[in-house]
């Protein structure tokens, strides 16, 4: 599926889609969006890239195996779950930085949780699709 048009389009679409996915992730707490959707959109961006440039090129772009994103994501989520324990609170208690940030709003532990979900979703989807497309029998 090497078409010039698609290749050119992908070159611009990939960063745009990735930006969009991060946008979805960050605004998830206030508007429709969130880690799941964000992660899925990001995966679609990479899948699109792999369609036009080949899976190997996408793997090179990622710089690491997508499988390795899973433990990182799970680790971030788990960290945000147990973080309140260090403040003597029950796990999963929401912790918030007091001041508002522009664009994002309040930053709290649940944002880290969502980031973890985001990474896991990307890792899972890309692992599945790339493993399939790289295996040929």
């Amino acid at each position: 599926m090497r078409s010039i048009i698609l290749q050119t389009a992908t070159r611009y679409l990939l960063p745009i889609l990735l930006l969009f996915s991060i946008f979805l992730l960050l605004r998830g707490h206030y508007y429709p969006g969130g880690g799941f959707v964000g992660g899925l959109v990001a995966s679609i961006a990479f899948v699109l890239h792999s369609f036009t440039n080949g899976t190997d090129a996408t793997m090179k772009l990622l710089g690491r195996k997508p499988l390795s994103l899973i433990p990182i994501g799970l680790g971030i989520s788990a960290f945000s779950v147990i973080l309140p324990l260090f403040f003597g609170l029950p796990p999963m208690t929401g912790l918030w930085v007091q001041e508002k940030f522009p664009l994002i709003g309040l930053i709290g532990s649940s944002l880290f949780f969502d980031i973890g979900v985001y990474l896991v979703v990307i890792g899972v989807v890309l692992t599945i699709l790339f493993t399939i497309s790289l295996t040929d029998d």
Partner: protein
Amino acid sequence: MELLLIIVLGLLYAGGVYFILRRSMVKLLLGIMLLGSATNILIFVLGSIVKGSPPVIDADHDTFSGIYADPVPQALILTAIVISFALTAFAIVLLKRVYALVQTDDLDNLNTPEEEDI
């Protein structure tokens, strides 16, 4: 509105059941997916359905002022959709392996597996 969704879910269930009664493995998988979406709609219907009022609180309010769609079924379905993707992916890969082994899509040919390479 509910009636429309209820008809849709009935049809999806019927289609899904029809597919899982077939002999083809791919049809079995498609049937399971249809049953999955039918169930999603069923859960959706069981909440209160409204048009144009998503369960998102207005920017300048702290709680809902008017009616809003039921958030609980939505949260459940969102999870279900993502999990069903993982299930589908796993099933597809299994199917791929089975097809590579027995060179057929017919479930009846799986009853006597080959001795080697299992």
